């Protein structure tokens, strides 16, 4: 993360449309002031203010990790802010949970839909407030009510059909219908068009405009900037948990928005002696790697001593490519060559044997066995090499793992400490330390610094540089573009399952990468 000295960056916060004229006009339906939220040392939101007015669409944009999801969750009562106030209809309020927010008419339509596929469409719409007669569910009223709602939303769906039979578009509409039943005033939509086809998007927009005309307010989060300029009345741009711009959307261009989203300062995190190693002997060559419906025809190389970044929006398929290279997911087609040798990778075991190792995205669920010690976790993939016969030679294992954890400066009372008690940064070091002895050809690091404090981050960057200097190839996935710009020699960009660009890191800009990742601009 870039250094965040309070107050240094100039922010055009809440110009023009603001809280000034309150009192004369109707107060905003939902108003946030000074919202701050941090997770174990990482600030996700800092002093965020936002007003959502009746009958308007308020777009929320920002890069991955800018704080949009956190902000949505705060608005919907899923997360409680550390400080700041929330007001509904001008009255300050404290949400204790999502149920509180729903009671005040705030509906979250999440990206991952949380509905019951085995129940009917009608039941899903009325879940928790089923019409009753004499203590039993009044099925007739239920179906009639749901039918009317669906018709109003333009969905030709039988209310009695099972929800699971329908695609994401209908499920989306059902969530919105649910909001209407609950007498919703504010609808928060998280990337609602991500899984929809064009005609479905058209219909969704019609529904949203209809909602808007009835006086509801919409908070609309999307990466598709062209949608925003057409639909929204106001736009708020988040960056690093701060509101960096808030304006009326009339006349705004996509380019202006992208410019506001980027602009974090980039620093080189370590100095590489000599210039970028791009062009050296490749340690990894991938061609035509395909997993149908997930990623398509991905091909690239990573040179010895080269640090290659993999950029893209959430859902672009970066993690999926990494998992496939590591043998965690099957592929439908493609060739993988490590140090000139064609390899077949069907399990992580194969990948490790071939010289490909992965530091996974979710270190707690995928990287570590939390109740085992640092030592056990580091030794896990190479227990065999510490064994005599079936028995583990405890002393040798300890000496070795101690060395590895010292090299990465894991801070813990001893290597016998359970990793579950360590801080996130130290846990990440343990996952990385695990692979050092193998001297693999390629390290894949998926979000290696997520949720880690600045100091440990820089240590991990240094280690990445060291690994490359020793001749390994490093493939880094990160949602933080400045990070990639700071540590990589070359950056690959993915969009919707395809590799759409490769640029040298020292000449490119955040702006250029983001444009490729979002598919805006000329391409």
């Amino acid at each position, binding site marked *: 993360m870039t250094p965040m000295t309070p107050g240094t960056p100039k922010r055009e916060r809440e110009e023009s449309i603001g809280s000034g004229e309150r009192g004369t006009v109707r107060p905003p339906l939902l108003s946030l002031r000074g919202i701050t939220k941090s997770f174990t040392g990482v600030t996700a939101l800092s002093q965020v203010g936002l007003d959502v007015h009746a009958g308007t669409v308020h777009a929320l944009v920002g890069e991955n990790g800018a704080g949009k999801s956190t902000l949505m969750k705060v608005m919907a009562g899923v997360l409680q802010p550390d400080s700041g106030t929330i007001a509904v209809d001008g009255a300050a309020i404290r949400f204790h949970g999502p149920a509180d927010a729903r009671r005040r008419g705030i509906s979250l339509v999440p990206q991952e839909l949380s509905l019951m596929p085995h129940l009917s469409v009608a039941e899903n719409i009325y879940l928790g407030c089923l019409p009753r007669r004499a203590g039993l569910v009044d099925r007739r009223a239920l179906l009639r009510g749901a039918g009317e709602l669906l018709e109003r939303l333009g969905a030709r769906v039988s209310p009695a059909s099972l929800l699971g039979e329908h695609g994401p578009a209908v499920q989306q509409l059902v969530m919105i219908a649910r909001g209407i039943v609950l007498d919703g005033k504010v609808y928060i939509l998280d990337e609602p068009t991500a899984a929809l086809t064009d005609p479905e998007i058209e219909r969704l927009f019609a529904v949203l405009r209809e909602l808007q005309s009835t006086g509801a307010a919409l908070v609309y989060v999307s990466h598709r900037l062209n949608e925003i300029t057409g639909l929204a009345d106001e736009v708020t741009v988040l960056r690093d948990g701060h509101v960096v711009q808030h304006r009326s959307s009339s006349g705004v261009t996509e380019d202006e928005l992208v410019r506001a989203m980027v602009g974090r300062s980039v620093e080189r995190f370590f100095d590489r002696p000599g210039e970028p190693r791009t062009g050296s002997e490749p340690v990894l060559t991938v061609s035509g790697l395909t997993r149908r419906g997930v990623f398509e025809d991905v091909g690239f190389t990573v040179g010895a001593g080269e640090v290659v970044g993999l950029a893209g929006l959430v859902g672009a398929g970066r993690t999926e490519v990494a998992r496939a290279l590591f043998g965690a997911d099957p592929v439908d087609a493609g060739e993988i060559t490590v140090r000139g040798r064609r390899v077949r990778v069907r399990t992580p075991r194969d990948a490790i044997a071939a010289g490909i190792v992965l530091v996974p995205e979710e270190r707690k669920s995928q990287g570590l066995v939390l109740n085992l010690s640092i030592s056990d976790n580091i030794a*896990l993939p190479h227990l065999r090499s510490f064994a005599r016969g079936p028995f583990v030679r405890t002393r040798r294992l300890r000496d070795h793992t101690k060395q590895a954890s010292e090299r990465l400066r894991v801070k813990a009372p001893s290597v016998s400490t359970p990793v579950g008690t360590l801080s996130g940064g130290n846990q990440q070091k343990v996952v990385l330390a695990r692979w050092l002895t193998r001297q693999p050809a390629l390290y894949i690091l998926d979000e290696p610094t997520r949720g880690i404090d600045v100091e440990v981050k820089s240590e991990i960057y240094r280690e990445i540089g060291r690994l490359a200097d020793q001749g390994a190839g490093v493939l880094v996935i990160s949602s933080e573009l400045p990070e990639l710009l700071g540590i990589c020699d070359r950056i690959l960009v993915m969009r919707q399952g395809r590799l759409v660009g490769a640029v040298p890191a020292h000449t490119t800009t955040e702006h250029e990468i983001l444009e490729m990742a979002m598919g805006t601009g000329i391409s």
Partner: protein
Amino acid sequence: MTTTADSGVQSGPKAGGRSDTMRRARSVFANSGMIPALALVIVIGTMLSPAFLTAPNLSNVLRISAVVGLLAIGQTLVILAGGGGIDLSVGSVTAAAGVVGALYQGYGLTGTIVAALATGAFFGLVNGLGVTTARLQPFIVTLATLTIARGVAFQLSNATPIYVSVPGLDYLATGVILGIPVPIVILGAALLVGQLVLSRTVYGRKLYAMGGNEEAAFFSGINVNRLRLSVYVISGLLAGLAGVLATARLSTADANFGTGYELAAIAAVVVGGAPLTGGRGSILGTGVGVLIIALFENLLNLLNVNPWTQLMVTGLIVIVVVALNRKGEAGPDRRIWKGLPLYAALVAGALLLFFVL
């Protein structure tokens, strides 16, 4: 960052091999934190019955608990391996293995033992394949094999106990090595080997890792399917061995044998401190669990408590011991408060039973 940030790097000189051993020992103790409970049972038993703490009585208790003890060792591995692991089939498999062994008594001692072990291993393999390659839930698969193995035992024995007379077999029931009855030696050896495997071998380390976090183990290149399959096979093998011991003790193979033993084995494992969620536990803990339950039942026998009351009391012991064993997962006061409604309900039930009905 943690408070140790300025102390720099990790292991000081103190954290040498000794403290590691200490820590291991302590964690074994904590996991099987029931050694105090065992001591309590022994103290109470000694006070209430003069016959309790005598060599013949203890020897008898241990001899009888050898069968359940073996099943509990296998059960420990299966539960430890995580993924909802449980083996409900072991009681039935013990009976089936005993019957198959009896059918092969014509081939002598070796034939009997090999046939029984092979039967056990086969059912274990079926369980393991069901759980790994077929991706079925362990509860369902082993529930099915519980039924199947019992059916096999009845079918092969025509539902009549088979008298077994194999030279040397009775040595497994009545023999004595260095003054210790053979069944106890076998159980002791199995406990020792099991503990050694879990704490010292590559296999054991992998098992703890998979039980603690299967995905992380998979991402470390561990063949989780094969590992998981192996624990079911071992559990089946131990059930086969238990079948041999049972046949030796009774001189008959009975298709009815071992009904409900799987539950006794599971109870011993949880009383021994292993959570059903896997990743934690030890064979020593399970050994202590077996002892607590066996000694308690023996004490109730000595006190002439009627068998129905015994059932109730044994169940209560399992609940109370496991509830107390949950320390470390919540603060002590929270534990007591959270347990209160449960204890109140149990006490109310007891009052109703004895004074109202």
